[in-house]
Structures are given as structure tokens and as C-alpha cells.
């Protein structure tokens, strides 16, 4: 049993110490899955790192007690602490792509770990490793164990990671975002596995995640953290179903539900003084949208990527990223596009924007046929009419440019506003329109948080006076409360300016909140397309059904 009391972790800085977590109390019993939720920067991972004794330098535990069974974890010498790691406490990391040593076979890594913590001989260790892998759900383990990590798919790799973590029969496993990098189908398998291990082997799990759905599905108890402090703790159904703390309530309000559509998320409203400055940008945009709303229709669109050459005469067959996709996006509507990673969602966006050359099919924006990829000239009107908001707001803004430069570029580039001062004024007004202080214009991207940056990205897209907006996973890098704000913003802007939006996401709940119609993409093919409500309530394709079933949600009985 793990007991944490009054935990205080500090990071000494040049100007005084930074307190990462403070007054954290928690107990995890054997066989219990204890969820730890909170937004980025809440200190969730720091709790886990403190328990296993792997705090990033120069962080240290300044106060509190950490005990595992009878062992005082704070009172161990470095050598003893290293012995506890793996033996009694183990860890699972977020990204299975990077958490295995790429140069060693699975077998070597497993055997090394097993032999470190037991006196088993080489052959006994191999037998044990094979048994473990079989148990974890890797078929043909005796053979597969000889493989290198890159020969496994993402989900299988996470299984190997779990096998490594449990290979020494630890009492406690700290799982830091173990399913965040995985697709829903794989995520549900991994979560099942964690639940089974907790039950069968009586392993205590500390499940760190930002995904409330995951917590709701598997955690017995949950602790909600914010800014290094515990906000609320208790039985999962209690905390999530009837949140007591104001912050937990807010958090729950921000979570998009899968089973119904809510018009707006309840988030603390931005103050109106900012919004009122946006009138200029608003008028400018409306003046630009005099002409009709623009739809997009794709007919038989296919994209192929050449296969790698394996010898002079042999080339692997081309990889079909999109296969005969036909999709009609009605003018002024939001089309949601869902699918697992590798299903071709982003390729579709790239084909529409002309970054990828399709092998066949037609794309029509309004009544203009879009030329393919490179044959679309730089001056083609669609280059202005179609704009994009990218997933990662950290890499999609040039960090060496002022916000003002980033925002005025489209105005200058497309020749909308000739006067430089006029451009700046319009950009500042646009910032107000997307809910930011106009003085942001003279700052640089690194001075803003992820959510603010995404607002800037939206402002940049709008300043090109687009009629068609592609949002490629616009909120998946953001915290859930920020996500709610951005989704509200996009909804408002869409309603005001009659934009047509292609909204790409792997998160079905988010798409449900946003889209009028939804298309489900799988291995480059459209599985199903239809009106969003109908598609979610009565899915036709088996694939859609399984996606909906596998998405972790809160049981309906908890809802207030």
C-alpha cells in the first residue's frame, strides 16, 4: 500500500524555489487503480516521479512522507532506491514508440530486467518472459520475443512495455498517460489489461491522465489536481458524478459528452471589453463574405504514395492513403471527419490544400475545380479561400516573428489592405475578435500559452478572408478546459461568418459537439457519412459502432 502525506516537491531556481506540488495526500491499496487527473502543469507527473524517486534534476522532495508498505521511500540511500525501482515500483510511459531501447531485442530487455531482480537462470528467465508476453496478449510469443521494438505496432509495443513493468512483480505501477498516444481500439485493450492485472495480481496502479473518460472507465478512486494541489479526492463515481469542488465542476463542464450535443460549453466568459474592439475585424470579414457560402465536393478522390524500392527491379506496391473518397460538404456547414491514426484524415486535408497530389478524382470548391497539388498556381483563388488551423500551436507559428507580422502577412500577401498601419489595426481588432488582448500584437509566440496560440492561429486563418476552413485536430494538443474555449470560439465564428469548416479529429466526442455532418474514415475509405446526430445515435457501419463503443465515457447514471 502506497501512502503519500503532505508531499512537497520543490525545484530550486535562480530566484528562489519553485514549488511544483504541495500538500498532496494519497493512498493506493493493492489492486486499486487510482486515477490522477488534472490539466498540464498540475503536477500529476511530478507526484509519480517523486514516488519512484526519478524527479528531474534539480527537483527534490522537500517535505512529507512517502511510504510503500513498511518502507519509507524518502529514507533510502540511492542504491537502495534503485533496488526498489523495478522490484517494488515500476512505471509505464506515455509513448510506446520511444520507451523501448531500439537497439536491443525485446528478449534481451526482458531478461535483463528479470535477472536484475531475481536469481533466475537465463533459460528460466526466457521462459518467464515468454509466459508474460503470452499472458499480456502477444501471440506466438516464443518467436516474437526475438524481435526488435520497431517490429511491433504501437499497441503491441505498449503491451511489451507493460510486460516489462510487471516482469518483476512490483507492488505499484505508475502509469503516466499510458493510452494517450494510442487509438481508441488499442486504448480500450490496454485499459482492459491494466484492470485485469490490478485484479489478478493485486498490483496498485497510479493512473496519471488528462482524459476524464479513461478515469471514469477504469479508476476505482480519483484525485483531481490543479497547480500542484489536490482539489478533490474520493471514489470515482462520487468525484466525477457529483463533484464537490468548484474546479472539478468546471472541469466536468468542459468535457465534451459523446452521447449528446451541447450548444456551448460552460466556461468562464471572456470579458466583453475585449470583444467590443473586434467590431472592425468583424465588419471587414462580413464585407468580404458578401458572396455566397462555399461548399466543397470531392468525387472519387484517391491519393497514393509510391512504395519503397527494395531492389533494382522490385518496388513495393504504392501505399493507398485515400481510396475513392466521395464527400460533399454543404455550404456553411461543419463536416466532421473522424478516424484512427493512419486512416488518411490529414492526407485528405493536404490534398484539398494542394500539398499532396491526388492520383485521381476531382475536388470542387463552390463551382471551381481545384487543380491538383503542384499544378495549382500560387495565385489560384483557392489558396486564399481555403485556410487551415493546425494541430500543434507550438510549431505552427514562426517563433521568430512578432504576432503582428504573423497576422498582417495574409493581409499584405493577398493584397487586401495596402496601408501598413491599417493592417496592424485590423490585426489588433482580429485579436479582440478571437478573445485576446490587442496588445498581443507586439509580442512573440513563446509568450503565449497553447490555447492563446491556437486563438492566434485562428486569427491568422481568418485574416485571409477564407470561405473554407480546415481544422486539423485543432484541440488535441490542448487541455480540456482550453479545448472547450476554442470549440466555443470556432462555433461562434462559424455562425457569424457562415464559414464552411472541415473539422478533423480522432476524438468522437469533440466532433459530435462541432459537426453538422460526420464522415468516418478508415484506411483511406469512407466507412460512413451522415448527419451527426443520426450517425451517433444509430450508426450503420460496424466500424462506427465499435469506435463509439470503445470510446471511454462516463456511465450515464453518474450524470447530474
Amino acid at each position: 500500500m502506497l501512502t503519500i502525506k503532505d508531499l512537497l516537491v520543490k525545484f530550486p531556481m535562480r530566484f528562489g524555489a519553485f514549488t511544483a506540488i504541495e500538500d498532496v495526500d494519497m493512498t493506493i491499496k493493492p489492486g486499486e487503480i487510482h486515477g490522477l487527473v488534472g490539466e498540464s502543469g498540475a503536477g500529476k507527473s511530478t507526484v509519480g516521479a517523486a514516488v519512484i524517486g526519478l524527479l528531474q534534476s534539480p527537483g527534490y522532495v522537500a517535505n512529507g512522507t512517502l511510504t510503500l508498505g513498511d518502507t519509507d521511500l524518502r529514507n533510502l540511500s540511492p542504491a537502495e532506491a534503485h533496488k526498489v525501482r523495478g522490484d517494488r515500483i515500476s512505471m509505464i510511459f506515455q509513448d510506446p514508440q520511444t520507451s523501448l531501447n531500439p537497439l536491443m531485442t525485446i528478449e534481451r530487455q526482458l531478461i535483463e530486467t528479470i535477472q536484475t531482480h531475481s536469481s533466475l537462470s537465463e533459460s528460466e528467465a526466457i521462459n518467464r518472459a515468454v509466459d508474460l508476453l503470452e499472458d499480456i496478449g502477444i501471440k506466438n510469443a516464443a518467436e516474437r520475443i526475438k524481435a526488435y521494438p520497431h517490429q511491433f505496432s504501437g499497441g503491441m509495443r505498449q503491451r511489451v512495455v507493460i510486460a516489462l513493468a510487471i516482469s518483476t512483480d512490483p507492488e505499484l505501477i505508475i502509469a503516466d498517460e499510458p493510452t494517450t498516444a494510442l487509438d481508441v481500439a488499442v486504448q480500450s485493450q490496454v485499459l482492459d489489461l491494466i484492470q485485469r492485472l490490478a485484479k489478478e495480481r493485486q498490483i496498485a496502479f497510479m493512473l496519471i491522465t488528462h482524459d476524464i473518460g479513461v478515469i471514469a472507465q477504469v479508476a476505482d478512486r480519483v484525485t483531481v489536481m490543479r497547480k500542484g494541489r489536490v482539489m478533490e479526492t474520493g471514489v470515482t463515481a462520487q468525484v466525477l458524478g457529483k463533484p464537490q469542488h468548484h474546479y472539478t465542476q468546471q472541469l466536468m463542464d468542459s468535457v465534451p459528452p459523446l452521447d449528446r450535443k451541447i450548444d456551448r460549453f460552460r466556461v468562464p466568459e471572456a470579458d466583453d471589453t475585449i470583444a467590443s474592439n473586434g467590431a472592425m475585424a468583424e465588419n471587414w470579414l462580413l464585407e468580404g463574405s458578401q458572396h455566397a457560402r462555399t461548399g466543397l465536393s470531392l468525387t472519387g478522390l484517391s491519393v497514393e504514395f509510391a512504395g519503397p524500392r527494395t531492389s533494382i527491379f522490385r518496388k513495393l506496391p504504392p501505399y493507398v492513403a485515400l481510396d475513392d473518397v466521395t464527400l460533399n460538404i454543404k455550404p456553411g456547414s461543419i463536416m466532421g471527419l473522424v478516424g484512427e491514426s493512419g486512416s488518411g484524415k490529414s492526407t485528405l486535408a493536404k490534398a484539398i490544400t494542394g500539398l499532396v497530389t491526388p492520383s485521381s478524382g476531382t475536388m470542387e470548391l463552390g463551382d471551381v475545380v481545384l487543380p491538383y497539388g503542384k499544378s495549382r498556381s500560387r495565385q489560384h483563388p483557392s489558396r486564399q479561400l481555403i485556410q487551415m488551423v493546425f494541430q500543434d500551436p507550438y510549431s505552427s507559428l514562426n517563433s521568430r516573428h512578432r504576432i503582428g507580422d504573423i497576422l498582417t502577412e495574409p493581409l499584405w500577401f493577398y493584397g487586401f489592405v495596402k496601408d501598413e498601419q491599417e493592417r496592424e489595426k485590423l490585426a489588433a481588432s482580429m485579436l479582440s475578435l478571437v478573445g485576446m488582448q490587442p496588445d498581443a500584437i507586439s509580442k512573440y509566440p513563446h509568450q503565449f500559452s497553447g490555447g492563446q496560440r491556437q486563438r492566434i492561429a485562428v486569427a491568422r486563418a481568418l485574416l485571409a478572408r477564407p470561405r473554407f476552413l480546415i481544422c486539423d485536430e485543432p484541440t488535441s494538443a490542448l487541455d480540456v478546459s482550453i479545448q472547450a474555449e476554442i470549440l466555443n470560439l470556432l462555433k461562434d465564428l462559424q455562425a457569424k461568418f457562415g464559414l464552411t469548416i472541415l473539422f478533423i479529429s480522432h476524438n468522437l466526442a469533440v466532433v459530435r459537439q462541432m459537426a453538422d455532418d460526420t464522415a468516418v474514415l478508415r484506411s483511406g475509405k469512407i466507412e460512413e457519412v451522415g448527419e451527426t446526430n443520426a450517425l451517433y445515435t444509430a450508426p450503420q457501419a460496424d466500424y462506427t459502432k465499435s469506435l463509439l463503443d470503445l470510446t471511454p465515457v462516463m456511465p450515464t447514471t453518474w450524470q447530474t
Partner: protein
Amino acid sequence: MVYFILKRMIQSVFVMLTVAFLAFSLFRFVGDPITQMTGVETSVEDQERLREELGLNDPFVYQFTRFTGDMLKGDFGFSYRTRQPVAEMIASRIPATLELGVVALIISLLVGIPAGVYTALKPRGVLTQTILMTTLVGVSIPTFVIGIMLIFIFGVQLGWLPTFGRGGTVQIGGWESSLFSFDGWRALLLPAITLGVYQLTLTMRLVRAEMMEVMRSDYIRFAMARGVPTASLHYRHALANTMVPVITIIGLQFGGVIAFSIVTESVFQWPGMGLLFLESIRFVDIPVMGVYLVVIAFFFVLVNLVVDLLYVAIDPRLRIRDVS
């Protein structure tokens, strides 16, 4: 895999052709070969006859093809200065340069890799800071100054080691080696250290940077969380991953060491290819310069090919295709 090697080899052929072209241009267009070969007393008619005999009036493409063909047959022409076949001159110098380069490389690896690992694992240690400072001084001083300082200290003041030449060499087949006699080693030591110092610093800093990067990676943190013994963690998990990018640079650098041993060879009067090249420049011995260029390019290409193969040997991701 076979395709990969084949592709590399075809690329190498093109590199060699380009260099051969450069060498040929040097021959043909830097000065007039005929005036280089003949004296003032040769008549204009004789000069013209010689020009015709040597095929210098033939079309350019034809001349280049003949030049490349002769090279492939091992006929590298004759030196203007000594009238000896260039092939023989270069061949007699290759062992000296190669031995010097290889020993310099080994010294730099034997010192550079452990020092890099140490400084990466103890980034705040006093010894680390000292090593980093010293090596910084090491790179800042030009090679010839280091050579001269070493000669001054160990050759002149202490009198421990010879200051020039190869010392006692042993003839093995056609290879004149200084690795099999005590005298040879004594003579080799100073030039090899001089040549290896820069490479050493670079190797060390590269290993340090890569190792620190690797130590922050998820798989090392995961290995730490599983309690993998520290020794294995550092030397089996981390070091192997560190070496993947380091090998490329070391390989490229080794090509450079062979090519640019000129300065060191000149300081220590080491009878290698570099010294030969310097002499050739002094006497505008263009055939030797051209062939030197081709031979050095060949070493570069060869080393790069070896590096590519090493890559494949170390990294299973290049060896084995994804199954799932």
C-alpha cells in the same frame, strides 16, 4: 540490403568520376603540359610533334576517357619532377600516411569516447569542467603549433622522442611499416598525437552531447524505472544508442585526417602522401597532385561506405523490416 549497398556503390562511382574529372582538368588546363615537360631549347616543331604523339590534340572527351581508362588500368602516368611512375611514388607513401592516420584515430577514440561518456554522466564534476576547458584550448590552437610544442617539450627539452622521420621501419611485403619496431613507435607517437588531438576533442564533445541527449530519452528513463543496473544502463543501453550518430562524424573525420595530415607530416617531416603533395606543389608536379586528389577521394568514398555498413550492423531498424 544488397540493393542498398549497390546503390551506394553506384553513387561512389559518380563521385570518383567527378573527382577524376577535376584531376584531369588540373592536368590539362593548369599550364601547358608540353612547356612543363620540355626545355627552352626544344624547337616548336618538336613540341608540336610531342603534342600530337601524346594525344593532346585529340578531342576533350576522348582525352578524358583515355585518362580514366589508364587510371582504371593502374597507369597513373609519370611525375614531371622525378620522371618516376606516379603510382609507385604514391604507393610507397601510402603506408606512412595510413599508419599515422589509423593510430591517430585509435588514440582519439580510446581517449575521446571514455572522456565523452564521463563528462556526460557527471556534467557538473570538477574533472568534467577541467576536461572541457583543456579540450577547448586544444581545438583553439592550430595543429602545427601543437606539433611544434610537442617537439619542443618531448624532443628537444626532454629528449625522449625523435622529432622527425619514421624511425626504424620494417618491410612487410610491399608495405613499409613502423608498427613493428620500438623505434618506429617512438617516431610515430608525437605525430599521431598531434594529428589526433582535434579529432579527439570533436569525438569527446560529440559523444558527450549525444550521450546527454540519450540519457534524457524515454527508454533510458524507463530502464531506470525498472531498476536496470547502472553499468548496463550507461554502457549497454545508452552508449550503443549514442554511437549511431557519432559513427558518421568519426568516419567523415577519418577521411579528413588522412587528407589533411599534410600539416602534421610537414611539421614532423613524415614521409607520407601529404609531404609528397607539398613537394609536388612546390615543383608544380601536376600529375602527382592529380593522382593524390583521386587517391584521397577514393579513401573518402571507402570510409563512407564502411560507415554505412557499420550503421546497418548497429541499428536493427535498418537491418530488419517492420513485420507488423
